């Protein structure tokens, strides 16, 4: 039963909207039995549980839907290393109303991807895929016209590049050529070793954010808590925002994409942070 929803439960590739109209076959010789064929969306699974709770097992924290334990699409037990992450996943499941909309459960999707690893990538492949994005990084890829957009890109994206160069002590630069900027090998090595310092869970989250924002620099800004999610999404969509200002906003396309990108980015960032933190509370006594 989970296998039929396999496509919907993994974080890669980004899902296309579920509008697949099937055009009627043939022309006037068509003879449809009964009513005309209109497209109705496929029925979703109903919410079959009342309560969602978490419990701690040997491998980590588990999610319980009523008395059943949550499993991944490949039928492995769903365990997460962090309690806060488990609570967030439980909240996702709890917020499903009547039907289960798995495309809204981004944290669950990310956990499934890490646990099942359907594309079977190890840490090196993941890091290589992430650093490869630097060559076609959005904030480095500039246009030459229209002048308004060039100005906007300079004002908004240059500070990000400067911040990244200073923070990581590397050279990146920007380019208007179709080949993109030429990134020196030392820069790639620095980022590779920086990413290697994260564990596998956090790394999947980071790579997901990079894939969504199409930018390594913006994702680093998020991971280092330099910019909030809304700002990173706005910078990633700079050209779209420019066009919206020129030509107007279309709610069912622009806002729809904006909220989806924000949700995915926020999920990836939160996932990466929750999986890489370890918090301790040190109580100090008041001293007079």
């Amino acid at each position, binding site marked *: 039963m989970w296998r039929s929803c396999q496509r919907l439960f993994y974080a890669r590739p980004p899902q296309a909207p579920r509008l697949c109209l099937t055009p009627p076959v043939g022309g006037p010789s068509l003879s*449809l039995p009964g009513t005309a064929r209109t497209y109705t969306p496929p029925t979703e699974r109903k919410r079959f549980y009342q309560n969602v709770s978490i419990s701690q097992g040997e491998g980590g924290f588990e999610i319980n839907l009523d008395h059943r334990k949550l499993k991944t699409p490949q039928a492995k037990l769903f365990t997460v290393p962090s309690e806060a992450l488990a609570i967030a996943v439980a909240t996702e499941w*709890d917020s499903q109303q009547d039907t289960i909309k798995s495309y809204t459960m981004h944290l669950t999707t990310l956990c499934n991807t890490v646990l099942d690893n359907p594309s079977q990538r190890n840490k090196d492949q993941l890091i290589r895929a992430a650093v490869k994005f630097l060559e076609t990084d959005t904030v480095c890829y500039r246009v030459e016209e229209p002048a308004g957009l060039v100005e906007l890109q300079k004002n908004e994206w240059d500070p990000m590049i400067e911040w990244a160069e200073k923070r990581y002590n590397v050279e990146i630069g920007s380019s208007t050529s179709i080949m993109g900027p030429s990134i020196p090998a030392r820069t790639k090595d620095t980022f590779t070793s920086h990413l290697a310092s994260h564990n596998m869970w956090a790394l999947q989250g980071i790579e997901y954010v990079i894939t969504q924002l199409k930018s390594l620099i913006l994702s680093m800004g998020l991971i280092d808590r330099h910019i909030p999610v809304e700002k990173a999404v706005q910078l990633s969509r700079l050209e779209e925002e420019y066009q919206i200002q020129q030509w107007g906003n279309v709610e069912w396309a622009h806002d729809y994409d904006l909220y989806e990108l924000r949700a995915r980015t926020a999920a990836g960032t939160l996932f990466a942070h929750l999986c890489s933190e370890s918090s301790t509370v040190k109580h100090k006594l008041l001293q007079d």
Partner: protein
Amino acid sequence: MASLGSPLRTLRSLLRELRYVSAQAGRPYRDMAAYQHLREAFRAHRITSEKLCRAQHELHFQAATYLCLLRSVREHLALHQEYHAKGERSTEEAAGLVGLKLPQQPGGKGWDP
């Protein structure tokens, strides 16, 4: 570049989002594990002896990110339900969009519909 606003505002918005979630679950939001976890986390980080506490900023950033996640998922779902969820319109509805009505033909149309 990170202007997250005040932590109080973030916390309040987070509680509001949790109330939306719990309204669908039907239970009071104070029972939710997420609510209690947030409350403890915010309380634990409230008093600190340092002026610029990195842990406070980290917690606030995490809270703001979670708020962004909850809010965006809710808005995305609302837009999806409104514009993309209902499937194709029937011929009657499509005609009704521009104020027309399909003709009633008591004898049938003469071919299969």
